[in-house]
């Protein structure tokens, strides 16, 4: 509860069948921001639905969780189920096929987010007329960019199709391996286009980089704050989006924990329930619920890894960190730059993998001794994703716990919203266009998947409602998601 005389600004969706998000901003007597909260109504229906289903269904069934990131859920569940069938190491063919699928997903998801959702904000400015500040505006102003966005997305989807069998709801990853290898025709078809994709990825890094450096002063003060960062890293500390131990660093780059085995995540991460939000707030146990929150996603990964194992992305990472003298970059809007570094890394990885003859191997599935529990952790496009299952002797799932990236970024998004709300509040109890836009831009930097977080499909249209001290609505504005 907020004591005293405060007013509320509520941003909430206009219509939604299942699950929705809204932002509430409380104003004090002097019309200053007293508190800002992003609410996402979360439905736990999925965990219930999954209970009582056979474990081998998980990698395919969990794709129902989210129409936006099905591949991440597919692979994460497959990793958890690998453990259940007693497999700790896949055949080279299986692991590389899965990685290829994963980089395809990262590539297309990041490209879509950047060009379709964020580039308009960056290229036209947050305050530009919303009629211009959208993907249609991009097409009108910069046709090649728009075409390239579509082609990059298509390419990523074709990588997914070649590895999972379908662009959405594929079945590629199965317990202990993969159900297909890559044919020479599939390989050659993809390889013929990686050169172009690589060039476009370089351009994308440059757009995001130049934008950040040009607006550094403004962005440093735009929903930015110091935070911990978390991701998985390879044994040697390299960025690894598919497999690795958990690492968390503080805002200065100091280690909080490192190389934590996936099975031990619950010893390091806990989830707090707050009475005002259905979405949980994960935190680092050793620090506690108050200050133990952390960010995940591209910014955290680029900040926390020791290096990137592909030359161009590594050069881009060094360039990125030179801005902060090698310390973590805590600027919210730097997510975009980090995201494009990962696009570059993904296409470098895709190219490397495609040249690997292991992809044509036919040892696809490994078996082992059945276990009662499995945990899988993966770096999804939006950040660290956890899938945890317990399975009975009859092979049916008895427990399922998921922590999606957007849930980890819950507290950070709240902070970002508060930051921009404070900056753009006009001194009057009204929702200015600038405030509305900025809140949207700040949330968007995290690329939240409300669909994942709420286990429902769709985007988030915004409705802003301003409520006065007596609970009366002072102002109301809406915005499509």
């Amino acid at each position: 509860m907020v004591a005293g005389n405060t007013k509320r600004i509520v941003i909430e969706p206009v219509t939604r069948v299942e699950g929705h998000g809204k932002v509430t901003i409380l104003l004090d007597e002097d019309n200053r921001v007293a508190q800002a909260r992003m609410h996402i109504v979360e439905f736990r229906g999925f965990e219930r639905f999954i209970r009582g289903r056979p474990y081998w269904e998980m990698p395919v069934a969990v794709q129902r969780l989210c129409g936006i990131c099905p591949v991440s859920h597919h692979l994460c569940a497959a990793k958890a189920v690998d453990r259940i069938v007693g497999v700790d190491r896949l055949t080279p063919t299986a692991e590389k096929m899965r990685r290829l699928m994963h980089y395809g997903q990262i590539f297309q998801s990041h490209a879509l987010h950047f060009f379709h959702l964020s580039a308009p904000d960056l290229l036209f400015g947050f305050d530009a007329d919303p009629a211009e500040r959208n993907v249609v505006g991009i097409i009108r102003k910069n046709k090649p960019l728009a075409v390239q966005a579509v082609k990059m997305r298509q390419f990523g989807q074709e990588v997914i199709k070649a590895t999972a069998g379908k662009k959405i709801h594929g079945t590629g990853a199965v317990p202990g391996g993969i159900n297909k290898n890559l044919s020479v025709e599939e390989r050659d078809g993809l390889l013929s286009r990686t050169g172009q994709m690589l060039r476009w990825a370089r351009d994308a890094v440059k757009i995001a980089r130049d934008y950040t450096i040009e607006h550094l002063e403004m962005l440093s003060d735009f929903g930015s704050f110091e935070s911990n960062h978390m991701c998985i890293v390879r044994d040697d500390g390299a960025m690894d989006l598919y497999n690795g131990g958990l690492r968390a660093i503080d805002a200065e780059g100091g280690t909080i924990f490192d190389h934590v085995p996936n099975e031990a995540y619950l010893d390091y991460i806990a989830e707090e329930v707050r009475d005002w939000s259905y979405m949980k707030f994960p935190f680092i146990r050793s620090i506690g619920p108050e200050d133990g929150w952390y960010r995940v996603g591209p910014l955290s990964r680029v900040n926390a890894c020791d290096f990137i194992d592909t030359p161009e992305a590594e050069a881009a990472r060094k360039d990125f960190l030179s801005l902060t003298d090698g310390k973590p970059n805590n600027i919210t809007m730097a997510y975009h730059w980090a995201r494009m570094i990962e696009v570059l890394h993904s296409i470098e990885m895709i190219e490397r993998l495609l040249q690997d003859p292991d992809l044509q191997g036919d040892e696809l599935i490994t078996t082992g001794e059945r276990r009662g529990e499995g945990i899988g952790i993966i770096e999804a496009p939006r950040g660290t994703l956890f899938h945890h299952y317990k399975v009975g002797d009859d092979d049916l799932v008895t427990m399922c716990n998921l922590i999606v990236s957007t849930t980890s970024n819950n507290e950070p998004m709240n902070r970002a919203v508060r930051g921009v709300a404070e900056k753009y509040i006009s001194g009057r109890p009204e929702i200015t266009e600038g405030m509305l836009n900025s809140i949207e831009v700040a949330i968007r930097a995290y690329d939240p998947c409300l669909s994942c977080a709420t286990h429902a499909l769709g985007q988030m249209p915004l409705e802003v409602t301003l409520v006065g001290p007596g609970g009366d609505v002072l102002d109301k504005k809406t915005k499509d998601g």
Partner: protein
Amino acid sequence: MSETFTFTIDGVEVEGEPGQTILEAAQAAGIYIPRLCHKDGLEPWGGCRVCTVTVNGRSASACTQPAAAGITVENETDELVDMRRGIIEMLFVEGNHFCMFCEKSGNCELQALAYRLGIAAPRYEYLWPTRDVDASHPDVLLDRNRCILCARCVRTSRDLDGKQVFGFVGRGPGKKIAVNASARLSETGLDVTDEAVDACPVGAILRKREGYRIPVGLRRYDGTPIGSDIEKGASS
């Protein structure tokens, strides 16, 4: 084959032998009559009515109706096709079928028929019944959510395996597939090598742990619609 006779299906002259059903004679002539509860090698059951045709203008199930000299059979009329669609749609809404993640997808006869008949969405409302899963058997899963009560498992177990593992209990909407034990599948004599395990046209009886091992593209009905093998058999 001195005793053969002829009749027509949709105007095409077809040869029949005494003792053949319309469905069998059609099949021998390379004409596919859609079916679900019928399975080659099993006694006809006549339960699902998907194979309904008209014989001299009157409805009959082709899987049970004997072929006869001179009869006029209609198979592919708009009316019959729509009636079949209706049956398939009803089967979809009566159970809990999630093709999207069902491991039988691509190999499922119900789904394949829906595709062949061009069903986009059922005309009826989903009933979302509460059904249970029997996972007690170490190697076989019985998921009643997907059962369409075709009795193929019942007949296969009885007639081919000589075991009577499966049967039905209840009637009307409460009818369900049951196992011949006080409670669970694990208590029956079902063996994973039994023919009954492969009898199910949908994903209600499954070998455990096989899941999605067949990649998309190589599944039974990925390339050609259900019935194509019968239709191809004629031209070759």
